C-alpha cells in the first residue's frame, strides 16, 4: 500500500493573502485613514498590538440579487418542535425582519459597521501618511558625503578575501588551453599504440610512459598561475545620507498641569514614532526644562514629574551646548520641537531672543506647540508670554512655525499641520 503524500506547508511564506489585504486597504484607504486618526484621540498608540478599526459598511458589501426578505410567502421546515400543532400561530418579534426564520435574529447588531484588524505597522502608515520632515536632504547633500562600496566588475589584483574563484578558474582553463597548443604528437601516438596493444607487459610499459609524458606536460603548464587570479572589484560611491538630529523640548514646570503634559507627551509620542519609522539616520534628543534644563532619555521624558518655575532660555542654552558638543552643524540637520504652556519669566524674553537668533540659522525647522487653555481659542486671542516672544521672530525666520493645541483630540491634526508634505 502506498502511503499518502504528506506535505508540510507550514514553512511556506505565510502572507498569501497580503496582496488581497493590500487591495482592500487601498480601496478604502481614505475611510480607514480617517477612522485610524480618530482613534488616536481615544486610545494610546504605544501598545504595539493589532489595532481594531471600525468603518461604515457602506460600499463594502458586495451586492447580489436576492429574494426580497420583506415580501412573499415563505415556508420553512424547522427542527425542534415543542408543542405546536397545525394551525397554531407564532407571534413575530416586534422589530427585525426574519425573526425565527432562516435569518433567525442573528447578526442584527453592527450591520452598518465593518470591523477588522490592522497590524501596528499598517496603522502607523495610515496615521503618518503624507507627512514628511521638511528640507531633510538640503544640508546633508551639500556637505555630507559618505562612501559606500559598490560592485564594479573584476580586477586582476586585490585582497585575497575578494578572490573570485569562478572567474579565476575560468581564466586558468583558458590559459591552459592556450599554452598547450596542438596536442603533443608523442602523446597521441602513444595513446593509439595503447589502444591497439594486446601484450600485457608492453601495455604496462606504455602506460607508464604515457603517465610520465602527461606529468611532464602538467609540470610545464601549471594548473593555476598568478595571471589567472581575478578579484571582485569594488569602487567607493559617494552616497548622500540624510542625517538629522531632532530636539524635543518640553516644559515640565509647575504651571504645566496633567492635561497640558498629557497633550505635550502625546504630541512628542507621535513625533517620536514618526521619526523612528521614517528616518533611519536620525538622533532624537530629549530635553526637559523648568528653571533649569537637562537632557534625559526617552522614558524619563515621557514619565517624569517635576515642578518648578519656567525659564525657557535654560533649555535653549542646553540645546546649543549639545549641538556644539555633538552635532556639528555642517554634518547634521537640526530640528527642534518645543512644547510649552507659554509661561515664561518676562525677563527671560530677551535672553530667549538672543539664543533664538543663534539657533534659528542653524535649524532646518523649529516647531512650537503651545498648549492653550480649553476655552481660549473661542473666547479671545490671548497671547502668552512665550508665544509673544517667539512670534516676534516669525517675520525673520520663515521656518519657525507655531501652533496651538487646546484639546487632546486635536493633537493629530496639529501634528499633521506641522509636517504636511508641501504640495510643491
Amino acid at each position, binding site marked *: 500500500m502506498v*502511503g499518502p503524500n504528506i506535505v508540510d506547508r507550514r514553512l511556506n511564506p505565510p502572507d498569501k493573502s497580503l496582496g488581497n489585504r493590500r*487591495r482592500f486597504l487601498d480601496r478604502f484607504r481614505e475611510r480607514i485613514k480617517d477612522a485610524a486618526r480618530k482613534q488616536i484621540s481615544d486610545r494610546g498608540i504605544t501598545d504595539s498590538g493589532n489595532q481594531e478599526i471600525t468603518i461604515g459598511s457602506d460600499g463594502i458589501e458586495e451586492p447580489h440579487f436576492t429574494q426580497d426578505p420583506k415580501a*412573499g410567502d415563505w415556508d*420553512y421546515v424547522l*427542527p425542534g418542535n415543542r408543542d405546536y400543532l397545525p394551525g397554531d400561530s407564532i407571534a413575530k418579534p416586534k422589530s427585525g425582519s426574519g425573526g425565527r*426564520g432562516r435569518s433567525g435574529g442573528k447578526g442584527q447588531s453592527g450591520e452598518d459597521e465593518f470591523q477588522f484588524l490592522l497590524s501596528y505597522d499598517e496603522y502607523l502608515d495610515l496615521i503618518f501618511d503624507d507627512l514628511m520632515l521638511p528640507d531633510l536632504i538640503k544640508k546633508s547633500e551639500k556637505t555630507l558625503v559618505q562612501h559606500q562600496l559598490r560592485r564594479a566588475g573584476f580586477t586582476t589584483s586585490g585582497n585575497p578575501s575578494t578572490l573570485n574563484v569562478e572567474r579565476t578558474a575560468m581564466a586558468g582553463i583558458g590559459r591552459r588551453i592556450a599554452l598547450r597548443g596542438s596536442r603533443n604528437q608523442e602523446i597521441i601516438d602513444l595513446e593509439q599504440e595503447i589502444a591497439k596493444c594486446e601484450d600485457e607487459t608492453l601495455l604496462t610499459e606504455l602506460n607508464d610512459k604515457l603517465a610520465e609524458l602527461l606529468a611532464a606536460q602538467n609540470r610545464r603548464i601549471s594548473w593555476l598561475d598568478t595571471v589567472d587570479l581575478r578579484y571582485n572589484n569594488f569602487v567607493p560611491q559617494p552616497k548622500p545620507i540624510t542625517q538629522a538630529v531632532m530636539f524635543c523640548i518640553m516644559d515640565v514646570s509647575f504651571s504645566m498641569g496633567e492635561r497640558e503634559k498629557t497633550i505635550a507627551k502625546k504630541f512628542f509620542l507621535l513625533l517620536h514614532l514618526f521619526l523612528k519609522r521614517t528616518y533611519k539616520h536620525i538622533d532624537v534628543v530629549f530635553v526637559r526644562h523648568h528653571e533649569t534644563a537637562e537632557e534625559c532619555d526617552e522614558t524619563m521624558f515621557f514619565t517624569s514629574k517635576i515642578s518648578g518655575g519656567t525659564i525657557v532660555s535654560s533649555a535653549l542654552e542646553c540645546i546649543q551646548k549639545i549641538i556644539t558638543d555633538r552635532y556639528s552643524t555642517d554634518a547634521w540637520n537640526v530640528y527642534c520641537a518645543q512644547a510649552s504652556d507659554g509661561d515664561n519669566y518676562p525677563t527671560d524674553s530677551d535672553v530667549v531672543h538672543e539664543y533664538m537668533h543663534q539657533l534659528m540659522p542653524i535649524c532646518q525647522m523649529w516647531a512650537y506647540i503651545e498648549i492653550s487653555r480649553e476655552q481660549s481659542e473661542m473666547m479671545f486671542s490671548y497671547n502668552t508670554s512665550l508665544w509673544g516672544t517667539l512670534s516676534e521672530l516669525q517675520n525673520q525666520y520663515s521656518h519657525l512655525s507655531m501652533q496651538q493645541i487646546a484639546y487632546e483630540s486635536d493633537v493629530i491634526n496639529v501634528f499633521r499641520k506641522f509636517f504636511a508634505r508641501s504640495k510643491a
Partner: protein
Amino acid sequence: MSNLLWNNSDWTFDDINRIYTACEDIALNELGLNCYPNQIEVISSTQMIDAYTSVGMPIYYNHWSFGKQFVQEQRSYSQGKSGLAFEIVINSSPCINYIMEDNTTTTQALVIAHAAFGHNHFFKNNYLFREWTDASGIVDYLIFAKQYVAECETKYGARSVETWLDSCHALQDHGVNRYRRPTKLNMDKERQRQKEREEYQQSQVSELYRIIPSNNKSITQLTDGKIKGFPAQPEENLLYFFEKYSPDIEPWQRELLRIVRKMAHYFYPQRRTKVMNEGFASLTHYQIMNRLHEKGLITDGAYLEFIALHSSVLFQPDFDHPGYTGHNPYALGFAMLRDIQRMCKTPTEEDLKWFPQIAGANSQELILDTIANHSDESFIRQWLSPHVIRKLKLFSVHDDRSDTAKYSVTTIHNDAGYQDLRHKLADQYLTSTHTPLLEVVEVDRKTRACTIRYTSENNRQLGNIAKMMPHLSKLWGRYPIKIVDQGGDVLDSME
C-alpha cells in the same frame, strides 16, 4: 508493543502516516470507497485563514473582496469569536487536504477519515461533480486565471480590472446553465483558445448588431424596431450571455466574465450537495473511527475525544435556540444516512411502507448508490424518513411576509405531515429558493437595449435591485438595460 496508532495528543508525521494507512485500509477494503489519490498538506492557523479567504482554493486570483474577508476572519479568530475549520478539502486530483497543525492527533485522524476519504469519495462519485467539474484540471485552470488577471492588471490598470471583477462577482450566482452539462476545464486548452476566442468573439458581437439587413425578411422586422427571437431561448446564464453578446466591452473583460463563470460552474455542485457531502463525510469518519476503535488501534480516551468532537460538529440547535442558524448540513445528512443503515438492518413496518426498495438491500451499497446519484433536493425528497422527521421534531411554518403579526404552523411530525415536510424541506434546497430566476429574454438590435425577466414564485419579490443595476449596466457596456417581471412591468431600468 500495543497496536495503537498513536499514544500522544501531539502528532508526528509518522503518526499521520500510520493513521492514513489504517483509515485507507478501512475505507477501501471495508467500506468500498473509491477515491482520488490524496495529498495531505499541513498548514498553520494563519495559512488556514489565508486558505479560506481565497475561497478555499490553493491558488486564486487577487481581489480586494478576499482581503476584506481576511481582515474580518482574522479579527474574529484573534478575538476568540470564532474557531477555525479543522480542514479544507479541495475537489481536485490529487485531492488536496489541508489539515491544521494545531489539531490534536485524534482530530487529525477524524479529519483524514472525514475529508481524505469521505469528501474525496463524494467528489469522485457524485454525478453533479462528475458532470460539472474536472478534478484534474482545476488547479491548472486556477493558475491560468490568476496569471490572466495579473496580466490584465498590468495592461489595463488594477483599478479597472478590480471594478470589472466586482460587477462579475455580483452576478456569480447567475453564471450556470442549470440544465446543460458544461464543458470541462483545461488549462492548456484555455490558454491556447483564449487568444482565438478574443478575436472571434469580437467579430461575433459586431455581427449581432449589424444594422444593415442581409435579406428582405429582416428589413420588415427592422421597421418594427425589433427583431423577435434574440435570444431564441431565454438565457438564465447571465454571465455567459454578457460574455458572448455584451456590446462594446473589451476582449479581456469577456475573458474575466468567463473566468468568474467557470468558477461559478466549479462551485455549483458544492452548493447543491452540501447536506449529502457533509453527511456522507461524517458517516465515513464515524464508520472509520468506530472500526479503528473496534480493532484496538485507538485508545478509549481517543475514542471519547472523537465522540465529543463528533457530537459538537453534528449539533443541531432547535429553532428557538440563540445559536440556530438553519439546518446543520452535517447533522441532517448524517441522520438521514444513518437512518438508511438502520432501515436496512431492522426495518419496521413503517419503513417498508415508505421505502420498499430497502428490503434485503446492503446498506453500504445503497448509500454509495444514493450519494452518487442525488443532489440535496432529490436526496431529501426521496430519503427523508418519518423516523428522522420525528427524531429532529421537524415542523413547518408558513410566513406571509406582509403579515407582521404572526407565523402559522402548517404541518408537524405526524402521519399527516411527513409527506408535506419532506417536500417543503426538499424545496428549501432548490437553487431557485436562494437565487432569484433571472433570464435575458430580449435584446433590441436597434437600440441594443437588453431586457431581463424576473420570474417570481410564491409572491416573492426581487431584492437589491437598486444596488445591482449599476453592475448590470456596466456588464452590458452601458447600453440600456431593464428588469421586468412576468407581467412585463419594468422593475428598474438604466439608460
